[in-house]
């Protein structure tokens, strides 16, 4: 168990001629994070955002070009990967193909010259936890994807390391297996209490598994927060759009008199939004963010925001129905009741609670009117 600290960590690739352009030269910039002991931290972001690079720097497979990485207070920048006492689960599993499952799991212990009896006992224990005892004599070749995944986890588990690193471990599994393993990894973490970094591009995985989530984009941290706070108080338009499915709707709104509005929608301004809009000088326009689940099909009601548009897509999902409505030149997604009496081409009016909308600066995309406590817990994104 360990506390991992990353201070101003950066990774800069010397841009090679003929390789990727100069804009990719900085893979990670100014990364600051301190974990709690035994915390489950998820790094999430679109591909190429630097999340895997960050994890590989913690593992020591890549060298950070700036800043420092500390594990339990010790600067590990010059420590070899093998001496960092870190176990990693790879996306491809990276099992040793010529070794049996037992030897795959025992290998690290055997390298450390652990007594045979103890190796056996620890492998058996891990195999029991992961329910792969019956596979110990098999070669990885003879296993299914899900079983390989378990062996890869087992190989990390057996070592009882200070830190677990998991690099998109579930992305090669089919959807159903993924949901099952998701819960299993969470359960495993709760049981072992080892500090864990988990990289994924899937925001659902991030939200369901992470105690704290680091949202990254283009090598920079956007926000570090709990799943709940990320959903409720995203610090900018990127985080707001990235967290939550389907994504938040954004409408460009003009400020006129006592309300916000544009073609096909309007929103009254309460004191909260009024204050938010005034933040850092008066503005005449902003982004209005509304989550699909906050749009309702209700009759006229005062004090509510309204939007109206022509239905372009109807997607019944069973418990709910997703409807896409053309408002002005924006396609707005709404999550509505299962049984809808509408058809494509109909004009649909929807209402929303002004307390549930998010405002973002039109230029900088930064959130407006964030409560102080959430502003404090988010990091440089606002700096």
């Amino acid at each position, binding site marked *: 168990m360990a506390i991992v600290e990353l201070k101003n960590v950066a990774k800069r690739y010397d841009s090679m001629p003929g390789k990727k352009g100069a804009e990719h030269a900085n893979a990670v910039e100014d990364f600051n994070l301190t974990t709690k002991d035994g915390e489950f931290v998820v790094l999430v972001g679109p591909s190429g955002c630097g999340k895997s690079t960050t994890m590989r720097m913690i*593992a*020591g*497979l890549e060298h950070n070009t700036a800043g420092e990485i500390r594990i339990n207070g010790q600067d590990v920048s010059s420590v*070899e*990967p*093998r*001496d*960092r006492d*870190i*176990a*990693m689960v*790879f*996306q*491809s599993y*990276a099992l*040793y*193909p*010529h070794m049996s499952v037992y030897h795959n799991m025992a*290998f*690290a212990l055997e*390298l*450390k010259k652990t007594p045979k009896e103890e190796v056996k006992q620890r492998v058996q224990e891990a195999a029991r936890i992961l329910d792969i005892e019956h596979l110990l004599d098999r070669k990885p*070749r003879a296993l299914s994807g899900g079983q390989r995944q378990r062996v890869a986890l087992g*190989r990390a588990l057996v*070592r009882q390391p200070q830190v677990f690193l998991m690099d998109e471990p579930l992305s090669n599994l089919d959807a159903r297996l993924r949901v099952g393993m998701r819960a299993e990894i969470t359960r495993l973490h709760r049981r072992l209490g080892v500090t864990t970094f988990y990289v994924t591009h899937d925001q659902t995985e991030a939200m369901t598994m992470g105690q704290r989530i680091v949202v990254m984009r283009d090598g920079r941290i956007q926000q570090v927060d709990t799943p709940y706070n990320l959903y409720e108080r995203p610090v900018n338009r990127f985080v707001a759009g990235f967290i939550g499915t389907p994504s938040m709707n954004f409408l460009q709104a003009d400020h006129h008199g006592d309300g916000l509005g544009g073609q096909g929608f309007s929103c009254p301004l309460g004191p909260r939004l009024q204050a938010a809009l005034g933040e850092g000088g008066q503005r005449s326009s902003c982004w209005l963010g509304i989550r699909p689940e906050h749009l309702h099909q209700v009759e006229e009601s005062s004090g509510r925001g309204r939007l109206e548009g022509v239905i372009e897509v109807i997607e019944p999902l069973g418990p709910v129905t997703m409807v896409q409505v053309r408002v002005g030149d924006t396609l707005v997604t709404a999550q509505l009741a299962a049984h809808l009496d509408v058809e494509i081409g109909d004009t649909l009016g929807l209402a929303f609670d002004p307390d549930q909308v998010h405002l973002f600066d039109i230029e900088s995309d930064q959130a407006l009117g964030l409560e102080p406590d959430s502003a404090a817990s988010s990091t440089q994104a606002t700096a």
Partner: protein
Amino acid sequence: MSASPTDASPGKRAPTKRLMAPSVLFLLVWMIVPLAMTLYYSFQDYNLMMPDMRGFAGGLSYELLFTDPVFWDALLNTLLLVATCLLVTVVAGLALALLFNRTFVGRGIARTLAISPFFVMPVVTGLIWKYMLLDPVYGLFSWVMRSIGLEPVQWLSSYPLLSVVMMISWEWTPFALLILLTGLQSLPEDQLEAVRLDGANRWQEFRHIVLPHLGQVLYVVIMLESIFFLTSFAEIYATTSGGPGTATTNLPYYIYLSAFFQYDIGLSSAAAIGAVVLANIFAIFLIRFVAGNLNAGSQR
């Protein structure tokens, strides 16, 4: 492999045998006829100096062969040559492959240069070594020896078999290098990373991951090279002519000598049959391995 002809329904089965017949026939003519003729000649009393005095000799040629000390020397030389050349080419090839698997400035050029000996014809290899490198007066090696104040070594007469081993290894190390390098490049990077995180040092990484990964490739290199080394001839012909004495006479050279110096077709045919037997001992392992691999591949 889903649509192999044997999978088709019986009524529509492709005429497999008839289609394969020409190539099988060709192979038969190409291989079996010379082999049968060699076998036939080995039981004949047939000397090119007296071509008219031919007749059935029974096992006489074999008796002569097995009592000829030169034959046993040749057999020993052949095995020594194969074993040492294998050792040198595989070890050097592996070391070079590990080197060329890393990135460094000028790797492309260095790699091309390292592979180039393979494209030099064996006779030319022999001449290069004989005159440019090993020659006690003009050779590069003796120049080096003299410039550090040592007496030049008479390579071809003092260490004839070693000289031949050096030549053949020089020629064949690139082959081992090429195949082992492709093997190394097919090793997934993440396995190396995993083993590094598991606490392995460089040697353990090599011993437990790289070497097992190269296992099959190494086997192929060893088997193919053994077959080639068994038939080494041109390098010996161009440099030592099997000498001094019988120091570098290997089996192919012995066959050549008995056929074209003693004109004894019976004896040389008998020796050739011996070479075929030896080559087959090696080939059995190779074929068994390839077949095993094919089976393993189809099970996957």
